[in-house]
């Protein structure tokens, strides 16, 4: 999706990059690839929410994730699944993208789950 010519970052391009990272090792990513992958998915989630707020309540994008997650159900009454999806994905991604010395890197299966949650969320919110 993110062709060599374009530099526009979209949730889709971030998710595609994460997908490539998940599918096969990328030279240079080394042992840090799961965290890198988690970070990409997390950025995709944040960007999805930003874009969504851009349409309905621009100031919300400036708030913390806690507030965004609290507000989301109020603005997605017709899409009741989205608030739950966002919460679940965030629960995993918030921790995984940080480098806690004692915390293990996420596994491929976890990353795959979050990836599909965020993909679904983007489809629903940005349709």
């Amino acid at each position, binding site marked *: 999706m993110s062709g060599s010519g374009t530099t526009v970052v979209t949730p889709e391009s971030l998710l595609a990059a994460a997908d490539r990272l998940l599918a096969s090792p990328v030279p240079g990513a080394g042992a840090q690839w799961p965290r890198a992958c988690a970070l990409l998915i997390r950025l995709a989630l944040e960007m999805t929410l930003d874009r969504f707020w851009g349409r309905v309540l621009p100031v919300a994008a400036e708030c913390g994730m806690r507030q965004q997650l*609290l*507000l989301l159900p109020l603005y997605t009454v017709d899409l009741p699944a989205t608030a739950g999806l966002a919460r*679940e994905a965030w629960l995993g991604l918030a921790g995984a993208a940080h480098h806690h010395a004692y915390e293990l890197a996420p596994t491929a299966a976890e990353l795959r789950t979050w990836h599909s949650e965020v993909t679904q969320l983007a489809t629903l919110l940005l349709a």
Partner: protein
Amino acid sequence: MGEREGSVAKIVSEKLGDDKVPEEVASLILDAMRRCAPEVGAGEGGQAAGPKRVYLKSISVEGFRGIGPKATLHLAPGPGLTVVTGRNGSGKSSFAEAAELALTGENKRWADRSSVWKEGWRNLHEPDPAAIAVQLTEDGEAGITTVTSDWALGAALESANDTVWVGGTERSLTEKGWAKPLELYRPFLSYAELGALVSGKPTSMHDAMQAILGLDLFTDMEKTLTEERRSAEADMKAAKNELPALLAKLAAHPDERARLAEKAIGERPQDLAALDALIVGEDVAGEGPTGLFRQVITVTLPATEDMAAAVDRLAAARAAVAALAGTRAADARRLARLLTAALEHQRSHVGEPCPVCGARLLDEAWAASAKSSIAELTAQATDADAAFAEERAAVGALARLVPPKPSALAADLGPELDPAAASTGWDRWVSEIAAMTSAAPLPAGDAASSRVSEVMAAFEALSGAVTELRSSAEKVLQDRAAAWQPLARDLALWSELARNGEHASVLANELRKAIEWLRATGKEVRNARLAPFARTSAEVWEMLRQESNVELGPITLAGAGPQRKVTLDVTIDGVPGAALSVMSQGELHALGLALFLPRATAADSPFGFVIIDDPVQAMDPAKVDGLARVLSSVARTRQVVVFTHDDRLPAALRQLQLSATVLAVTRHERSVVTVRAVSSPVKRYLDDARALAKTESLPEGVRAVAVAGLCRGAIEAACVDVVRSRDLARGISHAAVEESLDRALHSLQDIVALAMFGSAARAGDVPSGLKALGGPSCANAFWDAKRGVHDPNHGDLRRFIDDTELLTKALRR
């Protein structure tokens, strides 16, 4: 349970007919059923409404394990999730263990431990008094039920003083009828047990599942039949086991009956009738030495005086014949007839000379002498006849005294008995008699009398020899009988065993068929009943597995007897049959939980609660949110109390906005344990509301709408707590409480009315009631929350939230 057992009994009876099970086998099965479930068929009823649910209201602990002075864990009775957090050693597990101990009288974590564990149960700092009190509410029962255990100073863990108080009356735990369900559904799961559920003894898991499925009747029946079969098989083997010893005894025994017994035993089938004849001591067909010995004993000789009389009679008859000395009876008779004729002649010719010789005159003198001669001659002839007749009679009489020679005298009687003397004696006796009775010329005088004494001497000799032989034969027989007696007893015992064995082998075969049939039928019924449990387990696993490549397929109860187990169809990366050993500890724990939950929350269980101690410990961080989801889904219908030592589970619950009450247990010095509410649904709504209210960047309208929604959520949560706690304790059934909550939750005013007045119908009284309850600020909070999203209050949001907090507190007071 009664109903389910009844239905198992019905299934068994019906299937016995359908399957055309042979009469004997069917009667064994029915007999086992009668013994295992005597009450079946008594028509138990009254269970149709489902069991009454029991919920925990509080757990108070004093002087037990990590808890010193009395500490109480308050719980909201009714469905919902409570997470009790505390550092390791804070005393939180002591609450879980105390509740389990008070209700079940044991604790799985300690059950199989050494005595060190059991001795260290008293609190180190406050060992006395030691007491546990568990308060419960019972569905449909007014008042609180309190189960207490307390210990006298120095009493052992096992010697607790247990009481149950229902309201003000003391009842016993047995009366409550919880013992069996506690064992069946075990609403307690400790960390130690979590792993054991999967890796523990396979048979116990099998039996537990079987019991929950209402199939313990099958297990019990199979157990009964198997015991019977075992004893039948032991009976079958008893004769065989005893045989070598018996054969050794027989082989060592000289008696020919031992040989016969060996033959009877050696035959196929064994000739037990022949054996019995030997035991009674009768000879088989009179053959062999014993039979001959018996013949010897029965040898009889004429009495000596009879013998002597017969011999004397013959001797006398012989003497009489000899005395006739040549007289021939016929001559005398002929002469007498001649003289009689001459006498007649003389009567008409008196005085004439003799017509034969012509010399002598036949005068009267002649006639007189002729007459006397005739008389003499006639007498002579008669005497001679008599003497000969007597001789013949005497010979016959003597001959009749001699019996045929017994064959035993000529037989080989073995080393113990020599019949030779008697035999030759017999022969001599017989030959002496023959000599005497033969028609040989008679010896005269002394010779005759010596013959008599020879015959008698031969008889005396024979008589002596026979008496001797007979008494030695009797002695031999007595000795043999004495020697045979113990062996005969052994044979009798063995024959009894052999007969029992024959009977037992028929029985064992029927029992085998009965067990086979029962197993097959049990399997059918069981797998049908297991399906819903297995589904729940699979669902739980599905939620817990997360990234695990372990797949849980159908769960079945497999095997029989000591091989019975719960089979988990586990596939790893799609490879079936992969061993559980490949799974990680965390996966095993998750699997354990997947097996525990369907059992602990079975529809028939009277326990509305489950207590789970530290399920997170070995769990993958990623599985914790799966666990959070599992627990809150169970908490929709059950009171779930989870003890955990870290923050991962509360964090996951918070993050996923899953409703839960979080309590923190902290332990101060000297085992002073306190419980503090960290978070509850109400508190979380209020916290979230405050966080939003503070977010100045958001437009006021948005904040107002969101805060109103969250405040409304806080009030509703407080109302649900109040209604459940109060109505369940009042004895209203759980189902009825949930139904009224469901209805009232459509309107804030209704739910508040239900909480305040116990009836949604009194919604109109809510505003004034609130004012009376907590002043105008409470009423304001209610109105602001009620207008909520549609007409938000644009005033002071912080004050609104504070007022809401006041309102929730006032409601819960």
